[in-house]
């Protein structure tokens, strides 16, 4: 890992790879006739550009994995759409088109112990992906490509690793196999759902570094889903903070961390254990937890926990507003740092 592998601003001319348009997923709770719906995600507009790592951060149940599954086509959206290079994914009909899309946007899973079949050698998953997604390759070509892929994810000597079984590998190595399988499809965007949360601390950083390297060398974008803001800061360019199925805040990582606008982002940042920070133990302990969003009405979903909530928060669902360059938050109370030509003064100062 060199400094050059660390996040870089996406090229100015980087094109948009994927966009979600008002993406919404509701899950029916209970039986067929039930009218109780759990709102997994509501009205998500997210874009990912070429060469970009976007981190989706939030607590469990905030809907971040649901977004990944909607993009990957595991779930069908209740409303809204996913556009891949401007084309609606809904329009994909033939098996060839679906295969093509899934190859461009593969997923890497959280659990490296559950996501590899224990009865097959490492080569199995990679070869299958190559056969399916790279019909141009000969048998020999597939072998060479498999070795190249393992080298790309840092498993050398590659030939040895191809004939190993998952039980012979550590968690970090297994997760690298997961990335190699994703790479076999020649992806543009990898959906990485908590790829390091089950790994040991000492090997986590290696997998994060791998993502940074793959972005630089293979020009792959990532949607990195995590509950760990520090790791998001380490690899990502842009941070999207989710709360209860809504995007609370999004913007360039450093700007969001330095100037968190949404009270939830502020709460989240204050909760991150950081040995490098000076010791401060606030006496106040926050005991409330995120709501399960079942048939919600209007209003900000964070209002019950929000120290700045005003009357408006329980009536009107806040929309994302641009409050700093490229940095938006969905909060009625947050103030804008943009030149305030059209911004009205807000009652509380955050």
């Amino acid at each position, binding site marked *: 890992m060199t400094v050059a592998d660390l996040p870089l601003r996406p090229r100015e001319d980087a094109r948009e790879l994927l966009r979600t348009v008002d993406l919404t997923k509701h899950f029916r709770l209970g039986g067929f006739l039930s009218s109780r719906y759990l709102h997994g995600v509501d009205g998500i507009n997210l874009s990912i550009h070429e060469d970009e790592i976007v981190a989706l951060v939030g607590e469990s149940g905030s809907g971040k994995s649901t977004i990944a599954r909607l993009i990957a086509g595991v779930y069908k959206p209740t409303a809204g759409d996913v556009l891949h290079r401007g084309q609606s994914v809904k329009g994909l009909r033939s098996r060839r088109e679906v295969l093509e899309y899934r190859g461009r946007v593969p997923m890497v899973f959280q659990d490296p112990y559950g996501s590899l079949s224990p009865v097959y050698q490492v080569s199995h998953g990679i070869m299958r992906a190559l056969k399916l997604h790279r019909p141009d390759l000969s048998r020999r070509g597939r072998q060479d490509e498999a070795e190249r892929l393992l080298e790309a994810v840092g498993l050398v000597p590659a030939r040895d690793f191809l004939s190993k079984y998952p039980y012979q590998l550590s968690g970090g190595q297994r997760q690298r196999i997961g990335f190699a399988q994703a790479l076999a499809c020649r992806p543009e965007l990898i959906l990485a759902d908590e790829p390091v949360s089950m790994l040991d601390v*000492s090997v986590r950083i290696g997998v994060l570094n791998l993502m940074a390297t793959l972005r630089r060398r293979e020009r792959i974008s990532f949607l990195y889903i995590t509950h760990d803001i*520090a790791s998001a800061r380490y690899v990502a360019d842009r941070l999207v903070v989710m709360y209860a199925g809504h995007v609370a805040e999004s913007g360039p990582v450093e700007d969001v961390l330095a100037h968190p606008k949404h009270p939830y982002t502020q709460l989240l940042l204050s909760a*991150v254990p*950081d040995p490098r920070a000076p010791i401060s133990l606030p006496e106040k302990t926050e005991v409330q937890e995120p709501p399960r969003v079942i048939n919600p009405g209007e209003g900000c979903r964070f209002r019950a926990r929000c120290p700045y909530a005003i009357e408006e928060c329980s009536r009107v669902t806040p929309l994302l507003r641009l409050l700093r360059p490229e940095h938006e938050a969905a909060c009625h109370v947050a103030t804008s740092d943009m030149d305030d030509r059209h911004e009205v003064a807000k009652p509380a100062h955050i």
Partner: protein
Amino acid sequence: MIATSTRPLLQVKDLCVDYLTDRGPVRAVDRVSLEVNKGEFLGIVGESGCGKSTLLFAIARLLSAPAEISSGEVWFTGHDMVSMDEDELRHLRWRDYSVVMQSAMNALNPVMTIAEQLADAVGAHQRMPPSQLRARSKELMRLVGIDPEHLHSYPHQLSGGMRQRAMIAMALALTPDLVIMDEPTSALDVVAQRSLMLKIKQLQREFGFATIFVTHDMSLVSHFSDRLAVMYAGQVVEIGPTRDVFAAPKHPYTVGLMRSFPSISGPRQPLAGIAGSPPDLGHPPSGCRFHPRCPQVFERCSKEEPDFYTREQDLVRCFLFDR
């Protein structure tokens, strides 16, 4: 048999725990020695498989086959824990020490309400009239920050954070001197985790119990523990005041761990982690167990096993400090 005030609350000496497998014993905890003083918060950090949970279970005498204490001593308030039988242990459990398990969902009984489980635990160790028990239960719930209404809830009706709080309420029910915690926050989100840690610390200040807190997340205990022990491959490799360990980590493994997690503050810098992965305890490396992954390895490391060397207030198991 009564401890004098100068003796530590808990003293562990050269404790070894073996898992008896078909292929011979696997030593999961190897000659661990540590002390916990009254009211102290000791953090134990290490990666999965380093023996930290096994160590806790050995101290609490909760090991079950195939694990067993093969040698060493555990002294708790003047009692020799290793030689005690179940009847004697029952007198100490809950009243003198209690354990909070990692997964509250598995530790709590799903078909009993919180109130019933509290009554069950308390009733087994101390006679208490029902009215007093009810009052005590309500008091405990308020202490850990749960509405006493939830006494009549079943575990599945509570959130993860509330379940862990309920576990802690039960652990504190008979005001023990020592509360042993095995990753109680690992299933929680950061906000709930932070709030639980603050709660534990606040209760500790209030009631003066000592805590052994095991975690894989070094940064989590950085602001909470008084002393910190770092475990690797069944052994304690470094132990000292938490602030010192963070300010100047000494063992190359501790140094590596510190360089393994990114921070949300300060400059964004590349991190390397630690090459390789932890050893198979069935076949630990010769000499120092960390030597195959150590960036500062030298010849002696693979031949001899290092002992503890003292540096300031830290004990470090590394030849770099044999001077």
